């Protein structure tokens, strides 16, 4: 019997598995994808500071080094927020495999192409194993703790804990990886507009050699992201002239962090628990934090031979203290920005200082933003939401 089974070899699952293996536990990771990391479902942007969690990201995983972000107002004016520490646009197909390899080097076992169809509970209601399928063979495997790191796309989290992503709390996204795109290559480009991308934004994340991930996320509605994307590409011929090398899509949670992420013998982490930054939909870093934190708690529980819900709920406590309360603030910021019209957004981009923007995405200095908004009497009540 394994100490731990992890479902999902994304950043959350393998970060969790790596740390558990380092702590001396036997851990097996299953992923249904035939190839770990592929197809990608991601804009592939990550901050350089994530390396404090991950260690140095090898060059082979990096498509483009980034200095900062260019934020476009609806009227086309822009603001460059240059970061003291920059970021990367990754090649996730390589990055996810590297992360998985790191977990294997630490002693974990990883198995791709393995679909987990169900969870097994014992008579006490403890989760004690999984049912799966590998190359036509059905199997059952047992463990003391089951970690569900499946990303948002999995009914297992719903079956185990009733968790799903509320439809108004996801951004529905489409993305083309394109060649022959002309943008400043060492900035990520963010286009704000309540008309072009209601609630969300358009992103262009350069990948070197005029290649880029061109994506768009919006609040789910009848008019689909694809239709908005067509309009954006028509308005921006420097991007629209490119060729489509890959089509990606997905729904990314932008809120709805769950109170309880554990049951007897069971932990939910990463995007499966909606652990994503609600302002930009970045989930890689949050997944790693969440996976590592889950591993720390599971380690303590296994040492004490107590994997009850009560013991594992230390994870709820820790995650909410370290990340949840902070991401809640960021969610408030998102709720505020989505109420602004294009003319408000124009004025806002005008009034802000580049360094403010970075702070906002971390949930800090929201009172600065509130002050700017309060200059317009109409926005006073919206601004109060931030305080």
């Amino acid at each position: 019997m394994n100490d731990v089974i992890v479902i999902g070899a994304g950043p959350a699952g393998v970060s969790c598995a790596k740390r558990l293996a380092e702590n001396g536990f036997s851990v097996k990771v299953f992923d249904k994808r035939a190839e770990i990391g592929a197809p990608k479902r991601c804009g592939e942007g990550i901050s350089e500071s994530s390396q404090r969690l991950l260690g140095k990201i090898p060059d082979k995983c990096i498509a483009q080094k980034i200095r900062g972000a260019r934020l476009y107002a609806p009227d086309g004016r822009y603001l460059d927020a240059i970061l003291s520490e920059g970021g990367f646009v990754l090649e996730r197909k390589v990055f996810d495999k590297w992360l998985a390899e790191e977990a294997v080097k630490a002693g974990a076992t990883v198995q791709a192409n393995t679909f987990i169809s169900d969870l097994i509970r014992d008579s006490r209601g403890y989760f004690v194993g999984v049912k799966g399928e590998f190359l036509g063979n059905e199997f059952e495997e047992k463990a003391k703790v089951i970690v569900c790191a499946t990303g948002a796309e999995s009914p297992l989290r719903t079956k185990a804990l009733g968790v799903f992503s509320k439809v108004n709390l996801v951004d529905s996204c489409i993305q083309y990886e394109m060649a022959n795109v002309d943008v400043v290559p060492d900035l990520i480009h963010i286009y704000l507009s309540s008309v072009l991308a209601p609630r969300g934004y358009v992103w262009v994340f350069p990948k070197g050699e005029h290649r880029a991930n061109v994506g768009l996320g919006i609040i789910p509605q009848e008019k689909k992201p694809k239709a908005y994307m067509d309009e954006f590409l028509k308005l921006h011929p420097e991007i629209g002239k490119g060729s489509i090398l890959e089509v990606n899509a997905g729904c990314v949670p932008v809120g709805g962090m769950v109170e309880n992420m554990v049951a007897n013998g069971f932990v939910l982490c990463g995007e499966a628990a909606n652990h994503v930054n609600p302002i930009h939909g970045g989930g890689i870093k949050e997944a790693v934090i969440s996976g590592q934190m889950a591993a720390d708690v599971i380690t303590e529980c296994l040492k004490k031979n107590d994997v009850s819900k009560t013991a594992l709920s230390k994870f709820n406590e820790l995650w909410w203290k370290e990340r949840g309360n902070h991401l809640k603030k960021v969610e408030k910021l998102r709720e505020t920005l989505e109420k602004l019209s294009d003319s408000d957004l124009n004025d806002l981009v005008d009034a802000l200082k580049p360094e403010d923007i970075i702070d906002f995405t971390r949930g800090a200095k929201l009172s600065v933003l509130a002050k700017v908004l309060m200059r317009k009497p109409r926005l006073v009540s919206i601004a109060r939401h931030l305080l």
Partner: protein
Amino acid sequence: MAWSINSKLCLRCGGCVSVCPTAALELRDNIVHDMALCTLCGVCAKACPVEAIKVIKQ
């Protein structure tokens, strides 16, 4: 059938699965739908980035 999917349009992105409140959907090679669990609430169709799902409420 009141729930249907156009597999030619579907991008296999799993967006619909993440919003289904009843675990009626699953992404294997294609989207698998369990009519026994489905309440025809329609949020999967709303979340889908393309128009792959149609839900007709009766």
